[in-house]
């Protein structure tokens, strides 16, 4: 183990900054004029530190820091590797956008301070997930995050929010218990819980135990990454939560489930053990079913946020589809899709929030003529929807291209066709949005036609996600952006297995 040096504390600092910001917010929650500066300052500082970390990780540094010991083998260990840093970048960018959005979106909510403080706490915990260097650390941070997620989902305290929250917490907690069981099995079989590229297990480990552990992880992380048929909470939780947190649920929380599966696949089991177990085709099958069924459900869904939630299930299934091939190229594609999807989907949820704030409408069928009332929102929504479908040169296209190329190179024609059908479905569930926004209305414009655009900060955050989406599509190869980190991560993860 490396000794504690100043740079090795960097992941810890990144994690502590949002938690400290949350404490400040809680202390200042009565002074509303302070909420904005504290939230944005914390987010900016955290993002700055992540950028410093990225510069170091690009140089090949890998930091590790052991903090506490739960039981003799159960250290809380933080490590900044390429995969974790990529995820941290997503978190550190998306969370400030969501909090800034929330400052206006929930501007007259008396409990705004509490909401923001909890979002910052969840940011810190999610950064802990990103930097976790062992299964136990990952699980501890993820479970705490999930519990805070419950509080944020039921923020409205409406009957509907409480019902969705109940469903969410049951799914998540049962999933967490499965993960914990898997962790215990892994520790029993391997005697260690650290993430090691190439896996932990000796060649002679009991197949039955390994399969049980694998099943536990798939059920546990499957719930979190919304793999069908474990997706029940997703479609209810997203519409119930306030729009900024819906964006984080889709962009970060569900992605973290996939992130956990990546860690388990490449750094706990390792590709050779998994190939021997023969479980990857099953994962591909489940992912394929998720991609297509969720896409079909999205086409039939009228409520905008629910439709987007189903779209998340479908899109995140691509990631699993690619992971199931265990190829390096596919892994790069999967990581790219994970990060690109986060910004696109967050932007779309921001749009849904803008529409709801401006007009009170929440259904797709109510979007008729939106382009005339809220032209800027309409433009952004169109752009983001196109990116989600995968229209070049937006970022959604790039990641799907990478995924498709990798699947083709791997010879997985079935998976490739699933990807294509999924994209067609994406077009089918997002195209009506665009049509309804821009097609001229048959009659005279309604009386409230000039309801006006919502506050500029919200619009600015939505525009930011649209700009990032475009930028990631046009200039993905710039150093320090997700593509470079994803390549580095894929090389690290698969390097160990030879």
């Amino acid at each position, binding site marked *: 183990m490396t000794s504690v040096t100043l740079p090795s504390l960097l992941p810890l600092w990144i994690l502590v900054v949002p938690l400290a910001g949350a404490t400040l917010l809680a202390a200042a929650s009565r002074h509303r004029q302070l909420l904005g500066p504290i939230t944005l300052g914390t987010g900016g500082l955290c993002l700055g530190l992540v950028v410093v970390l990225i510069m170091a990780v690009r140089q090949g540094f890998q930091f590790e820091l052991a903090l506490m010991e739960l039981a003799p083998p159960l250290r809380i260990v933080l490590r900044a590797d390429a995969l974790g840093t990529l995820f941290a970048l997503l978190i550190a960018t998306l969370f400030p956008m969501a909090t800034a959005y929330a400052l206006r979106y929930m501007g007259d909510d008396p409990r705004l301070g509490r909401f923001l403080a909890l979002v910052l706490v969840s940011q810190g915990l999610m950064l802990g997930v990103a930097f976790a260097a062992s299964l*136990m650390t990952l699980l501890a941070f993820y*479970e705490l995050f999930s519990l805070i997620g419950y509080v944020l989902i039921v923020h409205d305290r409406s009957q509907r929010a409480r019902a969705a929250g109940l469903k969410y917490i049951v799914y998540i907690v049962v999933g967490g218990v499965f993960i914990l069981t898997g962790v215990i099995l892994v*520790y029993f079989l391997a005697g260690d819980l650290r993430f090691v590229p190439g896996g932990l297990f000796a060649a002679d480990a009991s197949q039955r135990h390994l399969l049980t552990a694998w099943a536990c992880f798939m059920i546990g992380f499957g719930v979190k990454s919304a793999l069908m048929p474990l997706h029940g909470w997703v479609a209810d939780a997203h519409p119930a939560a306030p729009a900024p947190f819906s964006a984080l649920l889709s962009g970060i929380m569900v992605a973290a489930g996939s992130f956990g599966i990546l860690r388990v696949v490449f750094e706990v089991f390792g590709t050779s053990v998994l190939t021997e177990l023969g479980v990857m085709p099953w994962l591909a099958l489940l992912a394929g079913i998720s991609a297509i069924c969720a896409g079909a459900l999205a086409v039939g869904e009228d409520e905008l946020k629910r439709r987007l939630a189903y779209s998340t299930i479908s899109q995140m299934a691509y990631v699993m589809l690619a992971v199931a091939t265990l190829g390096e190229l596919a892994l790069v594609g999967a990581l790219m899709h994970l990060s690109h999807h986060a910004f696109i989907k967050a932007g779309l949820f921001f749009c849904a929030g803008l529409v709801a704030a401006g007009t009170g409408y929440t259904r797709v069928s109510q979007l008729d003529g939106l382009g005339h009332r809220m032209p800027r929102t309409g433009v952004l929504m169109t752009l983001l929807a196109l990116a989600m479908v995968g229209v070049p040169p937006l970022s959604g296209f790039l990641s799907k291209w990478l995924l498709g190329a990798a699947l083709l190179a791997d010879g997985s024609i079935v998976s490739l066709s699933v990807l294509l059908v999924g994209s067609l479905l994406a077009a089918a569930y997002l195209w009506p949005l665009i049509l309804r926004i821009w097609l001229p209305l048959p009659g005279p414009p309604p009386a409230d036609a000039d309801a006006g655009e919502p506050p500029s900060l919200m619009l600015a955050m939505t525009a930011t996600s649209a700009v990032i989406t475009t930028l990631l599509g046009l200039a993905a190869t710039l150093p320090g952006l997700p593509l470079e980190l994803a390549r580095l991560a894929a090389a690290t993860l698969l390097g160990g297995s030879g």
Partner: protein
Amino acid sequence: MSAAVHLLPLSVVLPITAGVLAPALFHRRHNACSWWAITAAALTLATTLTLVSEALDGGLVRYPVGGWPAPYGIELVFDGLGILMGSAAGLLTLLILIASRAFVQTEATPQRHSLFHGLVLINLGGMNGFLAASDLFNLFVFMEVFSISAYALVALARGPVAALAALKYLIVGAVSSMLVLLAIALLHAQTGSLNMSDIGDRLAAAQAPAAAGLALGCLVVGFLVKAAVFPLHFWLPDAHASAPSPVSALLSGLVVKMGIVGLIRTRMLFAEADIFSLVALDLLLVWLGVAAIVIGAVLAMIQRELKLMLAYSTVTNMGYIALGLGLATPAAVGGALAHMGFHALIKTGLFLSAGALVLSTGLSRIDDLRGLAQRMPVSSAALTLALLAVAGLPPTAGFVGKWQIALGALEAGQPWLIAVVMSGALLTLAWAIRIINSLYFLPPARGQVLTADEAPLSIRAPILMLGLVAMVGGLAGAMVLEWIEPLSFRILEAGHGH
């Protein structure tokens, strides 16, 4: 013999003397009496902690009473159980006494204040003596000291239920004490000795397996009643729920653990005698533990009164401890012992914070306590933290024991027991979330909730401390496991040395 050794009898004599004097010196002078008790408890804690540091440095601390060496004289021994439960008893009694300043004024009639403080101190002295006793007769005497003071403490509460519950507790407790006394008589008749390790040596030579078996049976049943292990728990819910809240904390946190201490001493004695295999006893503990975990949690879930839920949760947790001891592997026994200490902390925090809610509102059903978090944020937060800990979420204090016990199940080759450990945690979380939901997310249903005042500082400070320690206490898990490792080693190795 170093000077610190004399602290061992002091840790017993000091609280009992102070307790006996309390009603005489401070009749009807509540404030002075409270300070007297707090001072005595603090001095006892300091004594115990000195002993702990002595024991951690140099192994066991032995004190031959009157200078007569064992087995001819009486000897007090401060071992791993003393380190673990002695320090827990000292610390928690001190916190309970501090919190009692506010509780007792409402929950007991003024004439009984001095009695209350006296009895709590006598109880502490009894527990310290019980932990230090190395001969059966003193074990019995100190057991009666803490048991009888506990019956009286339950009866101190106002209202008819408490008197009835105390009577039930008294009768059941007296029967179990008689069983223990009978066993001691049997053993003394066979071996002519009362010193426990001496009996262990002589019992094999006595060649009276029937008498020894009867003695073992009586001791096990007697201590299982004291430990409230299912199905001998029936006295516990009423007694713990109807007692004044500080007394509930004392009973659920500490006094029931003494039954387990007795069970451990019994097991060590008979393992040393090595006249028959203890597999049947271990199997009994495993099955009783399994039943207690599941049934306790289910019964907790269907309760409507907050304190009754917590009382049934004690049944669950005593089940975990019994299961860990019964598995008889290093990890499981270590986990059971650690859980004894951690659960004492958590349960004290639970009962004191729940007591604070009940005290301020006069309401005890969770449906009536809806929305109380608005008016009593600190008490609700402390309760929430302790609830998450009792469910065993990583990295809380409740997690360490569950992890070790699950690991022990794998070591013992009984992986299905993991499902029991996990389902216990899930069921616990289910009712814990029900409480948290009521406090935070449901609108108030009763007027008292709207006018309730936050608990006074003397309650808030201890419960917040306990809540935070419960929440992050797991991070000190490795340290605690290290402390008790020699003890669990001795429990498992007793008898194998010959």
